[in-house]
């Protein structure tokens, strides 16, 4: 008990003594954290939403037409290529997948809006999404579709509420009636604010100009133990055709991310956003610690005169940096989480604030504060104890 009063942190006392300055520093770090986390969230939402279908495809290899750019771009290939791939050793089965944008009539306003339509073979489980597996029977009925519950209500009307209250109901796609017979979870993307899923039969009934012999994607499932890369190379050698591309699932996902990074420059925007956050945070923390060090130079000089070594002051400013990073990080994390939730609810994008992301940003914030602290520390050399004697 007698020792209690001797245990205090000089770093914290110096920071806490100037409360307004501390509040400004914490606000600055918080702002930087929010900026960084929101950028990461947006980037994750963009890449995540752009690859959500691909990530949920139950396939080892994917076949796409040679001119393929991104999921939803109108490119197709001859189904015979898929059949040829089926004959390659190591391949268990192949499945065609169809996807294109169609017009869905808003169930509330009556306006038509583009929506991503995906055609599958019911019962073959191409997509491992919540809701899809449960509604395979609905898909088997001609003219019945599943609606993505995370599609934007503003674009397509309150389909989810209507389905929940009335059960299956009739909607219009490009003027043709369909029955909304179930809901599944996917989410919006760059090119569509909503998704519907249907059997290939319904898909082509709604779009008579399209042909089942020209799928947009080919799903290739391998036999147990088969090496995807080896089978992919075998398919390439066997087909010896320039009209299709065969990729592993992971490479196919990466191809989509690369496309959007390149064309929409989201990677660049993301990096600039994060750098701006780090820059703003660093400048604020530097300014605060610089002012703190400058104002306390006489006290630091006294401590030097008393016999405190330079590493003590380095440690003090280092500790101040870490305190600021933690104090700024916590509200920044909370604010970011609220922004994530609001954005996800408003846009339908998946905004995941993972523990790993939080830890990474905390480490980045700490590094930012420490670098700023180290820069401010250079002024400590001006604390000359000999100058105390005037």
């Amino acid at each position, binding site marked *: 008990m*007698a*020792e*209690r*009063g*001797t245990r*205090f942190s*000089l770093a914290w*006392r*110096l920071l*806490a*003594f100037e409360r307004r300055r501390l509040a400004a520093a914490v606000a600055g770090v918080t702002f930087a954290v929010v900026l960084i986390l929101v950028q990461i969230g947006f980037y994750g939402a963009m890449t995540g939403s752009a690859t959500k279908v691909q990530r949920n495809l139950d396939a080892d290899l994917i076949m796409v037409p040679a001119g393929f750019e991104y999921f939803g771009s109108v490119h197709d290939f001859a189904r015979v290529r898929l059949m040829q791939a089926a004959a390659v050793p190591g391949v268990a089965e192949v499945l065609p997948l169809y996807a294109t944008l169609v017009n869905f009539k808003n169930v509330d306003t009556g306006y038509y809006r583009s929506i991503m339509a995906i055609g599958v073979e019911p019962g073959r489980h191409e997509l491992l999404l919540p809701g899809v597996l449960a509604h395979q029977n609905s898909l088997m009925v001609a003219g019945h579709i599943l609606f993505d519950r995370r599609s934007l209500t503003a674009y397509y009307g309150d389909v989810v509420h209507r389905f929940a209250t009335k059960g299956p109901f009739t909607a219009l796609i490009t003027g043709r009636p369909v029955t909304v017979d179930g809901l599944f979870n996917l989410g919006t993307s760059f090119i569509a604010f909503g998704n519907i899923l249907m059997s290939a039969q319904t898909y082509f009934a709604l779009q008579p100009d399209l042909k089942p012999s020209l799928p947009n994607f080919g799903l290739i499932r391998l036999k147990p133990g088969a090496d995807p890369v080896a089978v992919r190379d075998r398919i390439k050698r066997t087909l010896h055709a320039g009209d299709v591309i065969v990729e592993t699932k992971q490479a196919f996902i990466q191809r989509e991310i690369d496309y959007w990074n390149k064309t929409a420059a989201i990677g660049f925007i993301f990096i600039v956003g994060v750098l701006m956050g780090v820059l703003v945070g660093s400048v604020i923390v530097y300014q605060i610690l610089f002012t703190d060090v400058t104002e*306390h130079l*006489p*006290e630091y*000089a*006294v*401590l030097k*005169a*008393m*016999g*405190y*070594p330079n590493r003590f002051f380095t440690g003090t400013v280092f500790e101040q940096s870490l305190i600021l990073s933690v104090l700024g990080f916590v509200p920044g994390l909370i604010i970011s989480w609220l922004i994530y939730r609001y954005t996800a609810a408003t846009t339908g994008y998946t905004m995941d604030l993972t523990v790993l992301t939080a830890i990474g940003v905390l480490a980045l914030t700490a590094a930012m504060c420490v670098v700023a602290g180290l820069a401010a520390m250079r002024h400590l050399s001006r604390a000359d*104890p*000999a100058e*105390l*004697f*005037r």
Partner: protein
Amino acid sequence: MSAPVIRFNDLSYSYGEGVLRRQVLFGLTERINAGEVVIVKGPSGSGKTTLLSLLGALRGLQTGQVNILDHRLDGASKDEQLAVRREIGFVFQLHNLIEALTATQNLIMALRLHPEIENPLEVAHRTLEAVGLKHAFELHPQQFSGGERQRVAIARALVGGPKIVLADEPTASLDGVTGHTIVKMLRGLANEQGTAVLLVTHDVRILDVADRILTLQDGRFVEGSDDV
């Protein structure tokens, strides 16, 4: 006769280089014993402050020899200077207490350099009591008067039980009565602990507390430096 705790021989010091070089101390030699209170007086620019900073190991020596306790300062490394400073109590004209800390915590900062001292909180409180601040353990410097601040500064200088106290104009910002009380207190506490006190001042009102007065003029001790 007590043993000298401060000895300096032929101590000289200059500022600047080349044509700008200005010598401020010229071959000073003196010794100060344990428990002795010595005042160094002299006009501004006479070299008092420079002498104090050299004896306090706050500046590197140029020429001459200085012995502080068992340490030789000539040729001492930064770490050795640091070690010497930990054995000295400093009192500055402007107090320079840490505003963010209480009186007790200001003393604890000094005690942290002396891990061998047990019950530091008790020692800090006892020292504050000794300078008449029993009521003010948890007050911050800005809550004190000028005189009280200087008392805290003196307590901070003495709390580690130094064998030497170097004080620079400790009464400059105080009124006559308070200044005299402070210096008498410094003397009393120093005597109790057998501490040598070297005090630099312009203040003629406090000369009576000294065992010896050294007069420094143009960097040299002059006649009139003598026992009181």
